[in-house]
Structures are given as C-alpha cells and as structure tokens.
C-alpha cells in the first residue's frame, strides 16, 4: 500500500507447509534503502534484514530481498533506447544505469518495453558486465486498464535455476489499512 517511493508491502507464505506463517514486511523509502523484516513463527520473532543482506535469496526462491523492494526510479540514468524483439513483440530496449547513491547488487538493468502495450516484458539485471538475473513478464492481462503480468519468471543466470511467481488475482486501488503493515500485524499474518 502507499504511494510510489513510500510504499509498504507484506508478503506471507501459506505454502509450502514448512514455512506457512513466515512473513516479510517492507517499508520503502525514497532515497534510502527499505526497512525489511522477516518474521519466523517457530521462534515468534522478527528479524531485521540489513542493506547488504538484500542480495541474499528470499526463502529459497531466486528472488533476492532487493528484487522484492520497490525500486526508486530516480536512482537511475536512462539511455540507449534501441529497437528490439521480445516474445514476438516489438519493443524498446532501455538501459537503466544505477547512480552510485544507493547500494545495490546490480549496476544496471536492460528493460524491454512493449511498443504496443507500453509495459515491460523483460528485464536483465547486470553486475560486473554479466547478466546475473533475468526477469520475464508473461501472461499479460488488463486489470482495471493496467497491463499486469500474471506470471513473472526470474532466473538466476549463474545457478541456472529459476522461480515462477504466479498471480491468481490482481486488484488495484483497493482499500487497505495502515495497521495491516506493522510488525505486530506480521505475527498473525497467516
């Protein structure tokens, strides 16, 4: 919930059974790293994730904590708009180079934007001149006039592994309470 640059996110696991009740809370801030906490029900404690920990993989998936954060778009310099193809669609490929203000595991992103739907279809995340993660946005559906990828696939290029995030439903502008995004709310988020 919240406005871009100052949003809050809570993710909770309902499956697999081993991690049911585990919850992740993120408070994003413009110009500085997000506050991130992970709640583990077996010890009834939340744990703060440090800025550098954000490169650690999240709950055995190929998403790192940083991949789940809201990205501050003002932290990039954009260049190199090129024509490209992705999944059979004509795209613009944009290079978004990270300014050195905020620490990240990535130095730049290549983003493929559909020319017809004006929505991203693919993102390559680079570090030291190598693509380390590739994100593919698939099954695009219009929800409340917004093109929404109902399937997001992220691949760890070094490991050769990938994770698929499937959205079963998506709704924008729904009413949410601020109190659902607190450390206290994490404890009963299952």
């Amino acid at each position, binding site marked *: *919930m919240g406005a*871009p640059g100052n949003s809050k*996110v*809570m*993710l909770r696991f*309902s499956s*697999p*059974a*081993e991690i*049911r*009740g585990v919850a992740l809370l993120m*408070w994003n801030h413009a110009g500085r*790293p997000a*506050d991130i906490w992970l709640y583990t029900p077996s*010890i*009834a404690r939340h*744990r*703060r*994730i*440090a*800025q*550098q*920990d954000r*490169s*650690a*993989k999240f709950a*055995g*998936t190929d998403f*790192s904590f940083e991949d789940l954060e*809201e*990205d501050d*778009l003002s932290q990039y310099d954009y260049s190199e708009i090129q024509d490209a193809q992705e999944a059979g669609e004509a795209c613009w490929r944009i290079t978004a180079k990270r300014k050195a203000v905020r620490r990240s595991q990535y130095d730049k*992103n290549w*983003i493929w*934007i559909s020319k017809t739907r004006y*929505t991203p279809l693919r993102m390559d995340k680079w570090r030291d001149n190598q693509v380390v993660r590739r*994100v593919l*946005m698939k099954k695009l559906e219009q*929800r409340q006039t*917004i*093109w*929404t*990828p109902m399937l*997001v696939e992220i691949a760890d290029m070094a490991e050769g592994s990938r994770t698929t*995030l499937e*959205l079963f*439903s998506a*709704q*924008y502008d*729904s009413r*949410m309470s*601020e*109190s*659902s995004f*607190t*450390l*206290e*709310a994490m404890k*009963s988020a*299952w």
Partner: protein
Amino acid sequence: MVTVRLFAAAIASLGLAWAQDSVWQSRGFLENRTMFYPQEASNDKTQWVNEWLLRWETRVRLGERWRIFGGLDAQTDTHNQVERNWHLSWWDREIQRPAFNVRTLFAQYTRGPFRLELGKQVIRWGVGDVFSPTDRVSARDLLSPSGADNLGVWAVRAVADTGPHSLELLYLPRFTPSRVPLVGQRWVVLPDSLKQYRLRFRGVEYPGGPQFGVRYHGIRRGIEYSGAYFEGFQNLPSLISRVLYLQKVWEYKAAYPRIRVAGGDVSAAWRGMVWKAEGAYSWTPTQITDDFISFVVQVERVREKWQMVAGYTGLHKTVDRITPYVAIDQAFTKAFAGRFGWAPKPNNNFTAEYWLQRNCRAFIGRFLYSREIAPSLRFTGGYIWITGAKDETVGRYSINSYATLQLRYSF
C-alpha cells in the same frame, strides 16, 4: 516503470488475498527426534533417547475484527521426560512434559492500530538471538536440550501499533514456570558436596498473584529501539533447602521469587550488518535470587548463501545471594556466542553454532546439517559437543555431548 508495475501487481494481489482471507487455516508438524549420548552419566545410564512430537496450530477468523488462535501438542518419549497419563494440560505446570498440552489458545480483537489478545500465548520480547535479557515473560521448556521451546502463558495483551511506535501492555493472571531438567537424569549434575546426601524433594511453591509488563518499541530512520519493564516472577526455580545431617538427607523445595526487570534494546542496520544490543537490570524484593545486570551485543551479516551471527553476553551481579537457583539464564553469560550458516542449495543447509566461555574454560559447539528429503519432509542431523573444565558449570556437562537425528513432516 518496470518495477512500479511489478510492484503494484504484487501489492494488488496481496490486497485481494487479504480481503479474501480464509475463515480457517491450520498448520503443524510431526517430528521424531533421536539423541545418542556416547557416554553414560553416573546418574543416568540411558544413551539412546527418542522423542515424538505432534504439533497442530489453527486460526479461525470471526468477522472482520476477531480471530481465534489455538495450538495443541501431543508427545511421548522413551526416557520418561513426558508424562504417561492422558490428561490434557492447560497450565503447563507439570514437572515432566505433558503428553497432551494446549500450547496456545487466545482470542484476538483488532481495530485499527489497536489489538487485544486474551488467552494462552507465546510472548517474546527483545532482539538478541544468542541471549535476550528482556525476554522474561514466556517460560521455556529446558527439560532437555531438544526442547528449548517457549511455553505459552495465560495473558491479556493490549497493543497500540502505529508502525513507527508501538506500546504493549501485559497482564498475566497466573504464573507459568519454565520446565527444568529432571533430577535423576543426565542434565542435572549435582555438586560433589551433595553426593553424600540423599535428595528429598519437598514440592513446588508456586507464587500467587498477577504479573505485569509494559514495552515501548520505536522505529526511526532504520533504527529500532525499545524499553521494557516487567514485574512478575522468575520462571526458573530457586531451591530452598536444608540439610538433615543425621539422616544424611538434603531436603529442597522449588520456589519462584518475585522479580522486577527493566531493560531495553536497540538494533540498526549499518555497514551491511545488523547490530543489536540488549540489556536489563533484574532485581528482587526477596532473598532467594540474585540482582544482576545482563546484556548482549551482537552483529549479524547475511550474504547470498551464508549468514553469520557473533555476539558477547555479559553479566554483573549487583547482589549475590547464597540461595541456589537453577540459573540457566546466568550459566550462558560471560561468553562469546554465535552462529555460521551456509545454504548451498535452497533446501539444504549447514549450521555451526558456538558458545565459548570468556575465560576459554568451557565450550559448546553445535554442528547440524538439514535437508528437505521429500516435499514437506525434512531431515536434520548433527553433533553437539560440550567440553570444559570440571569446575565450570558448563564443563560439568562434558559427558553429555550427543548426536542428534530429527525427521520432521510439516502439514
């Protein structure tokens, strides 16, 4: 644009999931734990111990504001650490572990930032992983090293949480003690001076009266801090004893003195690491336990596949009273402690934990390997090595080094 859209999608899906929050949820596990002690203890010849635990937890949503949480444990073992009768324990006051136990059962009412919880629940305070001086509310099961779970306590818990600020008030009408090792088993090592006496247990004196607690927690620019005060009872027993010299009998009974604990903690992410500090002053109006300051400082760091926690736990007694008590909370202070974890694959990991007494005269190492061998089925195996000088509290347990195998099916 890319990230915003992705992000929005994730938020949107979450929002709907929240709105469609199911009425009933449950989770649990069935676990088999085997421990093998290579050495016999003088008071306990058993070397193989097997334990089985079934834990089931549920949550029922009643309308927008009410939820009911409940949890049940069913367990047994081969070493009489679990009772052999069929009664259902509500109060967790048994000396052995009850075979059937209501671990949690509480109703939760939420309205905006306010939350009220009534019933049996696990309450944790503090931030320290290796030791937590302010975490004095919920009792613990310390009967054997395999347990070390927090026990539920009967409480009324009221919380106002705005996000950056939260205030928690506790009222505990009935005392729940920690469960401690059984006399006659290997985790009770008596001092040599008592070996000439027969022990006679005169029972437990449970305190009456309620307990109270209050904790403020704040978050400001990436720094988390809290202040807490608890007025209640020490959940580890003090032993009130007398020696009957002619009969060569050492008579003792367990009591739980009133204590007051004031403390706080702070944690912050700085230079790629999370730094934590926690301290508390514990004092008593009685004569049967000590007054002391305890603290922990620790740093933790997580990189892609490994994590590290390192810390120091300290203790300074301001009043040292002679009455012996089962000072498990003090025994592990004045030491360096930490953990290294390495997860080469998402479903398997190695963990090495250490505890080294400051004077280097006692050491505990815990080396574990864990692997998901089938969906929802996890194997954990390892070795716990205890060593030290015989005149040190922990060193006396050197013969209790053990190997452990654990199989857990989650559902």
